[in-house]
């Protein structure tokens, strides 16, 4: 009984201690951000660092997808919208700021001798018409292609930049994160998948696409085409608080943080 009471006391105490922090928010500089699920984790990280340096700021980051973020920005429910795709014509009244670029690389097992694929071959593989490694000049063995789940930003970008309107076949395997796609490709010699460029290490090898290697250099000089921008959108010129956060993201600290996460910064310092 006594133990129960103590537990209840502790809970009350924790609740009481927890509340002042959130109450104090009204007197602080608040910036609301919403949008792309691909950009969100990086924005959260940036916000964390920013709030450490500027304790008076409160940055609220929410996901919801690029489209939802753009809409929220148009309706002025958030200060910054995040998008991992380019704006459509009717959305172009928003100001866009590219915070970094993200390349998507096609990866295979290191033992796989196929080093180059054309965009068309990749389309054939993922639309289910090209099913055997023999057709790509390797062994007579089924291709174990892996895609991402419906709704994923990386899948969205892949469909747009690579598939060009063709549908990904229902028989293709699905994994739910960059990490698990990489895990499948790293363990299955006959697998092929696509991951964010930042995920690549010795356990998987990235193929060249139409002869172009997916590296930061090729992305910067626009030779490598499977690249999507991570955008921040504002409705009109951003106000002081919003400006301060965007300045931080584009500063050396912010850009280095993004580079460390495997993204391609837009500014070099």
């Amino acid at each position, binding site marked *: 009984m006594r133990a129960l009471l103590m537990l209840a006391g502790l809970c009350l105490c924790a609740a009481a201690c927890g509340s002042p922090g959130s109450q104090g928010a009204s007197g602080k500089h608040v910036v609301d951000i919403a949008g792309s*699920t691909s950009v969100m984790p990086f924005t959260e990280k940036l916000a964390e660092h920013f709030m450490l340096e500027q304790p008076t700021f409160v940055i609220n980051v929410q996901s*919801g*997808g690029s489209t*939802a973020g753009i809409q929220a920005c148009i309706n002025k429910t958030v200060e910054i919208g995040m998008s991992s795709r380019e704006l459509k014509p009717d959305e172009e009244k928003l100001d866009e700021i590219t915070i970094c670029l993200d390349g998507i690389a096609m990866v295979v097992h290191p033992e796989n001798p196929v080093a180059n694929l054309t965009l068309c071959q990749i389309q054939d593989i993922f639309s289910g018409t090209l099913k055997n490694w023999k057709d790509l000049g390797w062994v007579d063995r*089924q291709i*174990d292609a892996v895609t991402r*789940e*419906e*709704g*994923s*930003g990386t899948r969205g970008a892949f469909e747009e930049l690579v598939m060009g309107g063709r*549908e990904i076949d*229902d*028989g*293709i*395997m*699905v*994994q*739910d994160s960059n990490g698990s796609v990489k*895990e*499948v490709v790293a*363990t*299955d010699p*006959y*697998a092929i998948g696509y991951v964010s460029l930042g995920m690549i290490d010795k356990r998987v090898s990235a193929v060249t696409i139409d002869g172009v290697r997916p590296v930061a250099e090729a992305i910067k000089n626009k030779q490598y085409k499977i690249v999507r921008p991570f955008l921040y959108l504002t409705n009109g010129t951003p106000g002081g608080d919003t400006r301060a956060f965007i300045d931080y993201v584009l500063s050396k600290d912010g850009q280095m943080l993004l580079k460390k996460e495997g993204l391609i910064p837009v500014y070099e310092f």
Partner: protein
Amino acid sequence: MSSKTAVLKERIIKQVLTVFAFSSILFLFLIFAFILVEGLPLFYKAGVNSIIFGMKWAPTKGFFGIFPMIVSSFLVTFGALIIGAPLGLGCAVYLAEYAGKRQKMFLKPALELLAGIPSVVYGFLGVLYIVPFIRNFVGGSGFSLLATSIVLGVMILPTVISISYDALMSVPRSYREGALAMGSTKWQTTWRVVIPSGKSGILASCILGMGRAVGETMAVIMVAGNALKIPGSVLDPLRTLTSNIALELSYASGDHRMGLFSTGVVLLSIIMVLNYFANVVIRRKVIK
């Protein structure tokens, strides 16, 4: 302490315990309510047929067909039964009829431990050993119906064994004595008398095992490959209802999210039907 306060204390304790007991029903009710509120609107919007019998799942493009997943869920469940039921029944028969005290002392805790292993560990072992084994020695990518059935087959063992064991142990001692007195061997007694008498309990253990297999998520995501097609062979990847929800929930919004709740509605119905059958089977035994 006067007797009056003691009585009062007793009453308060009873009230509090009653509230605790009924809170479980409250939670069940709340879960039902939430899943139905979130999932049912889509059934009106897209139509029951196009969800339950639709072949195409592309929620961001307006297709919500989960038929392949319903089929896949049943396929892995039966696959798990094919592997888990004979093994589990064999183990239960050994425990109930043949094992001595010392073997039981060793086996029972081992089974409890097997039940306590988190499903992600089963999935991890499946990815590390079963999937590569199938890829190297049987064929395909390894992420398959076969791998999933094996992993689930092992996972339902504790359920199948413990309930079948209880069923066999509840067969009266006089049945065995009678059979042995008639001159039948130990195996004849077990096979002809004990197992048939415990039949309904054994059946219930299999149904509850099926419930466990249908509901399993984490291990399945890891070894099933999650492709959206109905598998053409045991070596093809597949996606179950549970893994569909877990795979896509983090990115889903709007109709997509509702589609996942609709998947939950179908899953809930399947599990309710299975539990109902298990209860019917068990009750029939009690009435006899």
